[in-house]
């Protein structure tokens, strides 16, 4: 079993290595100027050279992402419950939700600054706005997917709505909820970075943007790589929590690690 894990991980690393190798060769063969697209070797060198700078700017982005995700989860959950259990709520809010989702948040950027000030808040708001939609949709779906006969059975037993919700519906919906969490955490990263692009003096989004305007393309990609790494780590955290909470589901799926 361990051997299988190890070979899997090695395989995943190999894919990345192949990708970077291909990139390294390509820019050399095509004579691409490093300031336009640097080879991975230069990028990694820049990352090593500026590691403390990158690390220091990872924290603000991390806070913004987790904050935005938490807000999205809480907000998304509440709205989803409304949608799942009230047809009126569902019909009234759906079009609005979709409109909010499609709206380019960047366009609202100056307004966000005026309303939410500077610093962490606008980043968290934007991250939450971008991340909450899949949570709402999936949670509502999960809650609505409970076998109606089972619900009727519970009713006939005399169960209160609270009992039905917490004993049946909510655990039933958890696989759906966690599936949406996987998506939402990546969106929260995007959102936090958008927030940093709009206005910030810290965070990896800031690093990327600043390096871009300074034509420090290697540092810019270093920031991009660091951001990707952050996203992957957070995603894995969600998967890990999911595995702990839904241990029964994991067993059902047979193979331990299905991402």
């Amino acid at each position: 079993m361990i051997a299988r894990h190890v070979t899997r991980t090695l395989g995943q690393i190999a894919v990345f290595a192949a990708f970077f190798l291909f990139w390294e060769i390509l820019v050399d063969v095509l004579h691409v100027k490093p300031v336009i697209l640097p080879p991975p070797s230069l990028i990694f060198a820049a990352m090593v050279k500026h590691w403390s700078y990158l690390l220091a700017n990872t924290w603000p982005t991390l806070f913004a992402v987790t904050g935005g995700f938490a807000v999205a989860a809480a907000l998304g959950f509440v709205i989803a419950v409304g949608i799942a259990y009230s047809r009126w709520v569902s019909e009234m809010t759906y079009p609005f939700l979709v409109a909010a989702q499609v709206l380019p948040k960047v366009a609202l950027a100056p307004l966000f600054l005026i309303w939410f000030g500077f610093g962490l808040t606008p980043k968290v708001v934007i991250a939450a706005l971008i991340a909450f939609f899949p949570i709402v949709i999936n949670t509502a779906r999960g809650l609505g997917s409970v076998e109606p006969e089972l619900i009727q059975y519970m009713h006939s037993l005399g169960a209160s709505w609270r009992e039905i919700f917490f004993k049946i519906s909510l655990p039933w919906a958890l696989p759906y909820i966690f599936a949406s969490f996987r998506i939402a955490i990546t969106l929260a990263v995007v959102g936090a970075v958008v927030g940093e692009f709009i206005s910030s003096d810290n965070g990896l989004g800031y690093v990327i943007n600043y390096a871009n305007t300074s034509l420090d393309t290697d540092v810019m990609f270093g920031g991009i790589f660091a951001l990707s790494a952050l996203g992957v780590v957070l995603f894995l955290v969600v998967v890990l929590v999911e595995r702990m909470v839904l241990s029964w589901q994991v067993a059902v799926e047979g193979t331990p690690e299905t991402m």
Partner: protein
Amino acid sequence: MNMRRLFIAALGLVLMSGPALALDKVTLRLDWVFGSEHAPIFLARDKGFFKDEGIDVEILAGEGSTVTVKLVGNGTADFGYAAADQALMAYAKGLPVVATAVILQKNPVAVIFPSASGIKTLTDLYGKTLGVPTLSVSEKQWRYVEKLNKLDEAKIHQVSLGTGIAQMIEAQKVDAAVAFFFNDGLKVVSDGTPMGWILLSDVGLPIYSTSLVTNEDMIKKNPDLVRRFTRAFLKGWTYALGHQQETLDTFLKDNPTVDPKYSALKFPEVLKLTQTPDTEKNGIGYSSQERWEAMQKALLDMAIIDKGVNVADVFSNQFLK
């Protein structure tokens, strides 16, 4: 039969001279979206100055000087209209961008503020909130100015701004901001609030601004084209200086969606930046080795570049005539 021969000969001549009438198709990438600061360029095209030089120019809007110098340095755009300091930065990073005419002799980045604020000098910023665009080179320029003028940074409440500088000032979320005075500053004026500004160039920043740039390879391979293009380009500016209303009207006609009030406020201010004692003596677009050296030293001091280059490689006055 004689007539027929003559006719065929004449036809032949016309057909052969066809290729000679073909124009050089080039692209010109600007530094930003179309604004009245680009009016003389549109005028040069519309009045046929480029055609007269055998050039068919396509004018493209830009997304910042940084992108434009990348495109020109990479060969994706033939010519560009971008800030001279960006050109120098690009050259230092291996992109062979050369400025053939420096149009805006002074960097238009300034500390802008409502006139009513009573701010007259930089130290008047103490105790006030200043918006600084932390995602652009302007921020480094501001830090440099702070250093040169020995400002106590801690005494100014500085916040980071990205987009929407004009809105932030109008909403009074900041008392002042570091911005392009003729963009955000005049936008606020156009919306009804009188503004004042302190140009960073006036408090010690020796930076040339938007210039006509092209690729070193282009100069090597086709110097004649570069000369003709620069000539036509400058002709547009010279004409604009003498026919401001006509130039502005042409621009507004070409770009009907642009705010005319704001454009009218901007245009004369931009033209002012093209005139210095240097250009009066040597013609519009002239730049001096001395100033370029000073600019490079500033960039090194600002840690925007870490290695100097031979500035003579980055600019040229030889195409001005």
